[in-house]
């Protein structure tokens, strides 16, 4: 062997050793929650980076656990729907496959790929207004997540990266001070959420934070545009229709629902002058699903919980009150599992969490009743507005503050 050949072998040996060492370290620490082979309290049980890679983590969960029942949606479904609820008892290893910032297009693609890997029989999907904004686009990580479900070899790729190596180090260094974000079923751990609310200064603070975050993060600046369709691409409603048709074609039981949001979030939408879009979104979604639901003989339905009610108008603690716990909400966008359980009761008529109250909240919507329902919603909105002037002033000031940092004035 001449010197050039020896040199080449040396290069190869160093490169392979380095890459394999980094990969092995990442597999063991598993900072993005991809394999859960080794879970040790104080070593790697809490994973500070996992939320940023939730698409990937949930894709790996599908491949690893092959659930037959699952929840899909955004972080609202992820934080609010309890996988220990009795509606999942006949669906072993049911998983919460919601992830933060999911758009309806992403949800559609994820559901279809997950079904290809793990024959789904029952799915529940939370629909959020902002996840239908066509200006948001698909997160680049989604392709990697879909690839990991399609081909297990691709699923190994993230381990061989400096990005995950940095996350592994971060995981080890931060370990003693952290609470895990996820339960093993993919649902956000309520203990983590409660800790986060307290550490952030209480519910009112996180409400204000989430309302500002919504303006900054979910509406493209500076025009704050909400659109169901961008250019000639399929609209968000098309993605929903495709999703429902897919479920019907594959014989999957599907429950769709407009996610419960606190009344303050509905008011934020109104102040941002998005209310007509909000009503139009609900109406179009219902009309798109209607013919498919009719063909599915009750196995597909759509419900509305994004409404004003005693639950969604739950009063907030005072600003400096970091200890009082709200019953139904973490912040303006995210509901607690207590409310999620009521939603699941309503969707499946199980009634395990007690009688649903207040009456009239959480109705099944269809082509026949949607317009009347939206008219009623407008009335309830006006009643809320009249009774909560102080809250409204606070919301408006908060939004203006968020916009000011972007150099935008609220008209």
């Amino acid at each position, binding site marked *: 062997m001449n*010197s050039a*050949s020896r040199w*080449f072998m*040396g290069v*190869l040996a*160093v*490169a392979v050793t*380095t890459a394999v060492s*980094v990969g092995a370290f990442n597999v063991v620490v598993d900072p993005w929650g991809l394999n859960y082979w080794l879970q040790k309290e104080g070593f790697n049980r809490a994973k500070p980076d996992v939320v940023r890679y939730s698409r990937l983590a949930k894709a790996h969960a599908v491949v690893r656990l092959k659930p037959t029942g699952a929840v899909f949606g955004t972080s609202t479904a992820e934080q609010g729907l309890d996988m220990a609820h009795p509606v999942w008892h006949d669906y072993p290893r049911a998983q919460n496959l919601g992830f933060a910032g999911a758009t309806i297009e992403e949800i559609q693609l994820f559901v279809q790929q997950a079904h290809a890997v793990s024959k789904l029989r029952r799915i529940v999907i939370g629909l959020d207004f902002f996840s239908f904004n066509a200006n948001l686009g698909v997160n680049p990580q989604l392709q990697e997540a879909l690839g990991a479900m399609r081909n297990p070899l691709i699923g190994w*790729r993230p381990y061989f990266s400096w990005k995950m190596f940095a996350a592994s180090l971060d995981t080890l260094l931060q370990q003693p001070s952290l609470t895990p974000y996820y339960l093993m079923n993919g649902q956000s751990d309520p203990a983590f959420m409660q800790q986060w609310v307290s550490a952030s200064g209480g519910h009112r603070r996180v409400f204000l934070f989430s309302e500002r975050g919504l303006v900054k993060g979910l509406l493209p600046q500076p025009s704050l545009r909400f659109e169901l369709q961008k250019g000639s691409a399929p609209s968000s409603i098309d993605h929903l229709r495709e999703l429902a048709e897919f479920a019907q074609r594959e014989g999957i039981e599907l429950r769709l629902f407009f996610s419960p949001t606190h009344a303050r979030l509905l008011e934020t939408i109104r102040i941002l002058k998005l209310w007509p879009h909000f009503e139009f979104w609900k109406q179009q979604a219902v009309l798109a699903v209607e013919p498919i639901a009719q063909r599915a003989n009750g196995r597909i339905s759509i419900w509305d919980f994004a409404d004003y009610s005693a639950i969604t108008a739950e009063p907030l603690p005072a600003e400096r009150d970091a200890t009082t716990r709200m019953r139904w909400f973490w912040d303006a966008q995210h509901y607690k599992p207590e409310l999620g359980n009521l939603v699941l009761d309503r969707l499946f008529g199980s009634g395990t969490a007690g009688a649903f109250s207040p009456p009239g909240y959480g109705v099944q919507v269809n082509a026949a009743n949607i317009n009347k329902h939206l008219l009623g919603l407008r009335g309830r909105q006006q009643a809320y507005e009249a009774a909560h002037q102080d809250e409204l002033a606070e919301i408006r000031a908060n939004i203006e503050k968020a916009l000011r940092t972007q150099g935008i004035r609220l008209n």
Partner: protein
Amino acid sequence: MLFNSYAFIFLFLPVTVAVYFLICRLQHALAAQVWLVAASLFFYAYWNPVYLPLILGSIGFNYAVSRTILICSGDRTARSALAFGVAANLLLLGYYKYTGFFLQNLGAMAGANPGLLNITLPLGISFFTFTQIAFLVDTYRHQASRPGLVNYALFVSYFPHLLAGPILHHREMMPQFEDARNQRLLPENFARGLLQFTLGLAKKVLIADQLADIANAGFSQPGQQALIDAWCVSLAYSLQLYFDFSGYTDMALGASRMLNIRLPANFDVPYRALSIRDFWRRWHITLSRFLREYLYVPLGGNRGGALATARNIMLTFVLGGLWHGAGWTFLAWGALHGMALVVERAWRGAGAALPNWLAWLLTFTFVNIAWVYFRAASLADAHALLEGMAGLRGTGALSLGGREIAVMLLGAALALFGNKAADLAEQCRLNVRTALATGALLATCVLALTTTSPFLYFNF
């Protein structure tokens, strides 16, 4: 297929090289060439097989035209065949690259909206069209050899250069493909090829892709950049483009050298240039060579007095700009360089000279400003960023983080003071220390390959 992908690094390149030398070892030179053609076409079709018939048709057509020119050599038919061949190539390029632009502007002038034409630019079409036009012209001039179909197909489709150059010249390539000495594995070439490939990969992954974040963010909001940020954005792009394109070229040269085929150099530390003429001798050298030999000289070059020379320079650079893309921004970029060369020529003619530091500063500043047109989505966007660079939006504060500043400084230092990757690969001593360093660098790059990041010149 991208050079900076797992599929290329771990599968395509090793398999292609191994099978090629295995066939060569079995004394099947033609079969080895056929293998390289097949591998190159697979490489081309990997991303989108739709355009495979296009490149095959283009190869077949140009080969047939070249044979016609040879058979009819000396009579008017040869000239007609050449004209037909060149026109057909330009029409093909024009259809895919300029139809949308032409119709849109025609519509705008007529006050109508022709709508969007969905014509996707086939990968590498600008490169393989130019390569073949040069071959036809030289065949007509009796300056080209008479290759067999396989050799010709390999010259056009050879995977290291296919998607983004260098723009090959048949004179320097075809003899190499046929040389029996190149048909056995030479460890020295393989090792130095691997080193140059690794250095190119590092330029792309560790520098260009990091700078891309700064440039992309800035160019997405060109009207919001004040003086400091606007300059950072434009400098980041200038460096990104250099490291991206020269990184690609180093990877191409390195991969090709593993097969004992030497591709021409495309870069010679261009940001050290002391004049615009000097810059074009250092930047995208094979394009400059093509434009000079097949456009500027046939137009008359500098043989017709100052005005005619200025006209020829302007035409060459405007068309060179448009070659990069169908848009007013590319036209403006080409025209700016053309004008700069005309002014520089007049300045030199007057016998005026500048100290080197000032000449470098003026050259680099001009090149950097011209890149703004090259990168911006529209003339309005380019002007918006230039307004920021001119201080019309105030000084502002530096918004880059420590990591971003470090990458920019590293990029600038390497671009201005670093050795060429080709020189490093050539002069490096193949010992334990360099094996360790190369292995570590290769691993570092591979572990940084987390997202697909196409090369900028794939768009052209």
